[in-house]
């Protein structure tokens, strides 16, 4: 409909991510835009508030690179491996380097973080949920409060809306208008995108609008709310894209070793982030063979019929 929103990652980040912004790079294990995270590091954004259910390696790297002043999250770890050491060094006073300050922390549960995005996306002043009861979390996070039901005497907990300045999602495909289709784990990509003031959609593949329109139930985010579309094959590595490539579990394990040491972490950032101009160069540096072993064999969904009604 409107003109193409297709830009390269450098342009998308330069235009839509500013110092001091609240940024959500979402994707639950699946479809995490490491390509966007690395470009934010390269462009040396500062004082970001980083929101994400599971900060994962992408925020460990961004924190190590000095981009963040605050984290909003529900689970802080290297999934299946252990801790996020760079973040731990900024959250445990004993581990803090000279001249560094503690990260601000604002912490929820998974359902609470989902609820914050839902409230933001639905323009609601709060999201009610059955959680936090008899947990210490409300004691340390004043934004987890109770709400009185207008039906009966019951109270449940509530979280406030989260409206990121920019949400960045990765997915399998989009057209140049920004209509995004995704399959596999959906995480909270849709809710985080609708909650945001600006949306960057990063995809493995740009497809003609006719491909999108052939299966409209597969669309999770409409071009209406998308400001920039970036084509970035392998842009989610070391996380994965269902049907395209596997999670690089070896790298998740390797990061555990690298990130335990501040100097090794900095060296890794120099080599793999600052040392490459963009994601294409990062991919080339690994070499094509590296990704061949991460490529799954095919498991087709099959086609359904929408019917042509004239």
């Amino acid at each position: 409909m409107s003109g193409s929103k297709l830009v390269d990652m450098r342009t998308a980040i330069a235009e839509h991510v500013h110092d001091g912004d609240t940024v959500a790079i979402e994707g639950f294990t699946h479809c995490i835009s490491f390509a966007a995270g690395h470009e934010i590091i390269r462009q040396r954004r500062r004082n970001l508030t980083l929101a994400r259910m599971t900060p994962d390696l992408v925020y460990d790297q961004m924190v190590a690179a000095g981009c963040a002043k605050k984290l909003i999250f529900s689970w802080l770890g290297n999934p299946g491996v252990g801790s996020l050491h760079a973040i731990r060094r900024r959250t445990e006073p004993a581990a803090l380097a000279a001249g560094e300050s503690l990260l601000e922390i604002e912490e929820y549960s998974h359902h609470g973080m989902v609820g914050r995005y839902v409230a933001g996306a639905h323009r609601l002043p709060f999201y009610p949920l059955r959680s936090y009861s008899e947990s210490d979390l409300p004691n340390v996070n004043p934004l987890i409060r109770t709400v009185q039901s207008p039906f009966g005497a019951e109270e449940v907990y509530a979280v406030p809306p989260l409206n990121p300045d920019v949400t960045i999602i990765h997915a399998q495909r989009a057209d140049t208008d920004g209509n995004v289709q995704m399959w596999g784990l959906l995480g909270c990509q849709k809710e985080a995108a609708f909650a945001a003031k600006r949306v960057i959609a990063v995809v493995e593949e740009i497809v003609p609008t006719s491909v999108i329109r052939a299966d409209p139930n597969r669309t999770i985010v409409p071009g209406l709310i998308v400001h920039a579309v970036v084509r970035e094959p392998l842009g989610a590595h070391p996380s994965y894209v269902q049907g395209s490539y596997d999670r690089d579990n070896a790298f998740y394990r390797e990061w555990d070793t690298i990130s335990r040491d501040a100097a090794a972490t900095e060296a890794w950032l120099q080599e793999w982030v600052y040392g490459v101009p963009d994601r294409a160069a990062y991919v080339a540096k690994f070499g094509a063979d590296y990704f061949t072993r991460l490529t799954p064999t095919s498991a087709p969904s099959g086609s359904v019929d929408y019917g042509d009604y004239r």
Partner: protein
Amino acid sequence: MSDQRPASKSELMVVASAHALAGRRVCFVGVGLPNIAVNLAKRTVAPEMELVYEAGVFGANPARLPLSIGDPTIVTGSTATVSMHDLFGLYLQGGRIDVGFLGGAQIDRFGNLNTTVIGDYAAPKTRLPGSGGACEIAINAKEILVIMRQSTRSFVKELDFRTSPGNLGGAAAAAKTRAAQGWGGSGPSGVITDLGVYGFDHDGEMALRSLHPCATLDEVRASIGWEIRVPQNVPLTPTPTAEELRLIREELDPTGAYVS
């Protein structure tokens, strides 16, 4: 020729956990040991069990052992893959989960759990992962099973932080709170460790139910930070069958990455 080594402590944990799942229908799976336990149960005592992953999968049928809770292998071939809003709202909070597995850095005598910090919250000695889905699983799954290795650092008199409630200060308080606050479940029903299997007495306090064949009562007492209740005659946890060990060693964890 099949592996003849006796069951290790980890294997005893996994097999005892699988036994605890007998007859359960819908299980919220965590990674690591719970995942192997659940898959073992599905092949033995609970063939109808449906695996639910918090990442958004119902009826998973993983072709390999997933490292993370969001591995692509849990999606391919599953019966339903949904948003996390649906998973936490419709499935968990909606009351569709029979049993949830939880672990933690600390547990107390009433089954309350800490996965947030060691030390002071604002200036922690160790920053742990936090709740994830634990604090809502704890109150919304109909029943909770805990899997943890025991030590005086983890089985403690006082939690540094209560992330997920168990039986609070005892069964009476917990029952009152569950009713008043509309919890969907009845809290922790068992704790499986590397040394034994624990249940909860009528007053909500943890008590030893069976001792693993490889463990001693002295070991049990020395690795718990309060005086643990031990019945007069402690039964032994049933020894894993050859078939159970074969399933673990040959099918579920052939590289020994999780159970060793």
